[in-house]
């Protein structure tokens, strides 16, 4: 039982947080609990000095490698002068600094890069064997082994190994009689999630998953042999790696119940946030022996319905050392009210409020489209969008002149959240009229494009685009003889970079249109650009892959086959479903909407038959050219 561990590590705490209450864990509770096997991995506590702000500042002042954390021994050395004289130590003589620089520093959550000077020519086996024998009996687990010009480079995770390797500098003689010279530095790895790493990660995850208990044990993931045997560096404390892991888990085992992230040097909790949406069944989360500093960080995860949490060995737990035990329990239950087991100790059952259960709270289902007028309005919206984006994406946007009222208004705004960079919208920023940022009256006026020449002029400078109609959501809010309000959302990418897989963007376009004679005229238009969501990026990359797989002949805008989601019930949905079939067929065949519809009507709205009929007729040359005129 995990209790064993608990006792050893935290002797100060009593068996139960609430001794007078014996309602704790009956047998029924144990039976449904899932536990992780003790992996018997390295239990030694590595240098985990508390975050020392003064020291960090001093190091920053020194403007050298940043050392985060530090062993007690090291700190003593730094503090030799005592208290406020610390800075002086760093600004000491050149000799001193040289000495410090040479010495590898402990970095919390970091890795250590070993550079063997002019090592390339000796070959990997010789060098690693030599170094391995030097640090014996400590095992050498080299990661990211490579040659960089003349130098031979690899990384290790363990600080002790790094220190020992450093002491090997200038101590050994190589096969050609030269001394082996090396340098060791702490660094934060930048991990590229390439195909090889992803495949290996998947294999490692699969091996660590327990089907019976729906538990995944990622304790000290970096030490996994599947990874180390390929010299892969895979630090779970890098946000991109953690996000990727969560994605993979959500994909393969969305009903995961228990997850252990023990001993992964985690200091940030935010990357785990995605679990709230992606792993709704997660009840047990172990994060023991990490580096989470403050209980407030767990606010990020408060949406998780956890029943068991283990945070033993994190600095945040130590902060409660001198406080009553109840404070710690309360702090955790504030975030996770259902917790009945904390750090291996059973807690009395919580008394919770009988509030609506989040799990049954469901949002109304999204529809692809709302069309206020399924007859004429539907046709108008379809035609309008088809024509508008055909011209907009055509390379020459001058014909759009006809679509705008003489005094039409147009403006653009970009939504860039705090964590996103501006770079994706560089070409749009000069015209960004986001009123949250642009507060000057004059500037707001200037950024409003008034009159069709001004609007079309702006469109001429707007990057060339490829919109993907298969991703469009269309809402026809009003359709009256006086006014039409149409809102379109969807994905696009910039054309010139299309082949390089230029980043996709999401747009929202709100039109006010007035009928003029037999046609229509835009009087107001607001365009908003947004970053795509991870789900949208995934959708587009899978489509792009399909595209390259099936060769360039397939339509660039062909959408994925959309499940007949819209065809649930009611007339409206039926119309929407049909409308979708039409756009899909049109995208696949390059026929215009009218002919695509005709084809579907004749095949009784069976998309497969329609496609089949189209192919047959096309191959026999029976489709008239006007079917492809748009």
């Amino acid at each position: 039982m995990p209790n064993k561990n608990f006792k050893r590590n935290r002797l100060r705490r009593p068996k139960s947080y609430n001794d007078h209450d014996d309602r704790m864990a009956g047998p029924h509770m144990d039976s449904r609990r899932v536990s992780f096997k003790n992996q018997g991995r390295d239990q030694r506590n590595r240098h985990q000095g508390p975050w020392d702000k003064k020291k960090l500042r001093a190091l920053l002042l020194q403007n050298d490698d940043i050392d985060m954390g530090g062993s007690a021994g090291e700190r003593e050395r730094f503090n030799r002068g005592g208290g406020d004289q610390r800075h002086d130590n760093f600004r000491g003589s050149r000799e001193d600094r040289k000495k410090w620089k040479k010495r590898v520093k402990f970095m919390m959550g970091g890795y250590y890069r070993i550079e063997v000077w002019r090592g390339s020519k000796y070959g990997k086996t010789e060098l690693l064997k030599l170094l391995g024998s030097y640090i014996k009996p400590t095992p050498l687990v080299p990661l990211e082994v490579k040659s960089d010009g003349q130098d031979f480079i690899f990384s290790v995770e363990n600080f002790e190994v790094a220190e020992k390797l450093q002491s090997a500098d200038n101590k050994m003689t190589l096969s050609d009689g030269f001394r082996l010279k090396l340098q060791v530095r702490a660094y934060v790895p930048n991990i590229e999630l390439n195909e090889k790493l992803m495949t290996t990660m998947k294999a490692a995850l699969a091996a660590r998953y327990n089907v019976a208990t729906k538990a995944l044990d990622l304790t000290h993931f970096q030490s996994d042999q599947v990874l180390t045997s390929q010299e892969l560096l895979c630090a779970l404390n890098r946000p991109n790696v953690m996000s990727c892991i969560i994605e993979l888990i959500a994909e393969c085992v969305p009903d995961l119940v228990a997850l252990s992230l023990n001993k992964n040097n985690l200091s940030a909790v935010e990357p785990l946030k995605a679990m709230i949406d992606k792993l709704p069944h997660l009840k047990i989360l172990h994060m023991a022996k990490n580096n989470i500093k403050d209980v407030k960080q767990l606010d990020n995860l408060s949406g998780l319905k956890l029943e068991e949490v283990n945070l033993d060995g994190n600095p945040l737990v130590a902060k409660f050392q001198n406080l009553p035990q109840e404070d710690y329990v309360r702090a955790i239950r504030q975030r996770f009210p259902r917790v009945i087991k904390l750090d291996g100790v059973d807690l009395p059952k919580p008394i919770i409020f009988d509030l609506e259960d989040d799990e049954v709270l469901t949002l109304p289902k999204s529809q692809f489209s709302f069309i206020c007028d399924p007859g004429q309005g539907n046709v108008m919206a379809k035609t309008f969008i088809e024509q508008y984006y055909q011209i907009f994406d055509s390379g020459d946007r001058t014909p759009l002149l006809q679509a705008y009222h003489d005094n039409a208004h147009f403006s653009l705004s970009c939504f860039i959240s705090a964590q996103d960079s501006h770079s994706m919208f560089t070409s749009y920023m000069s015209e960004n009229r986001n009123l949250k940022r642009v507060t000057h009256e004059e500037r707001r006026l200037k950024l409003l494009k008034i009159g069709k020449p001004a609007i079309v002029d702006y469109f001429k400078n707007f990057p060339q685009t490829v919109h993907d109609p298969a991703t469009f959501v269309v809402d026809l809010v009003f359709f009256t003889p006086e006014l039409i309000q149409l809102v379109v959302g969807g994905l696009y990418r910039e054309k010139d970079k299309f082949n390089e897989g230029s980043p996709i963007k999401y747009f929202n376009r709100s039109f006010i249109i007035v009928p003029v004679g037999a046609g229509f005229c835009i009087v107001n238009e607001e365009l908003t650009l947004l970053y795509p969501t991870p789900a949208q990026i995934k959708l587009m990359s899978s489509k792009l892959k399909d595209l390259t797989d099936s060769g360039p002949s397939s339509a660039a805008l062909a959408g994925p086959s959309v499940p007949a989601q819209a065809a649930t019930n009611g007339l409206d949905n039926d119309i929407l479903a049909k409308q979708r079939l039409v756009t899909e067929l049109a995208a696949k065949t390059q026929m215009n909407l009218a002919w695509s519809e005709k084809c579907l009507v004749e095949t009784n709205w069976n998309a497969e038959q329609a496609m089949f009929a189209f192919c047959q007729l096309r191959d026999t040359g029976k489709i008239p050219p006007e079917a492809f005129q748009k």
Partner: protein
Amino acid sequence: MLDQEQKTQIDMACRTAEEFTKHYYENIDKRRQLMVKFYMDTAVLVWNGNGIIGKDEISKFLTALPLTEHKVGALDAQRILDTAVGGKLAFLITVAGTVKFSSKNHRPFTQNFMITNHEDKWKIVSDCFRCQDPL
């Protein structure tokens, strides 16, 4: 060229949009029972493609939604041309931001409003809400 009145109206559209969105999101997040006051009797709400017509129906629909927490990140507003609204004062407003439903994570949304001056009060004529990812 724009005359002074047009300039004033453009400025008014921006300022009204700022005020409006402040009140709208404050109320929808904290005092949803008051939302009914924002809408015209015949207003239209399109919520992720679901159409709801009339302020009472809209109020009912909004009340049934899980708790929300909106954050506005981008805002734009224009005065709708007279041609479309027959000389009535009406603004087109676009909002982009993030919204959190209950304990779920923040997700991006866009929302397009049309508001008009009705008996000296700003009222919503149409309200079109979309989460960026289908739910």
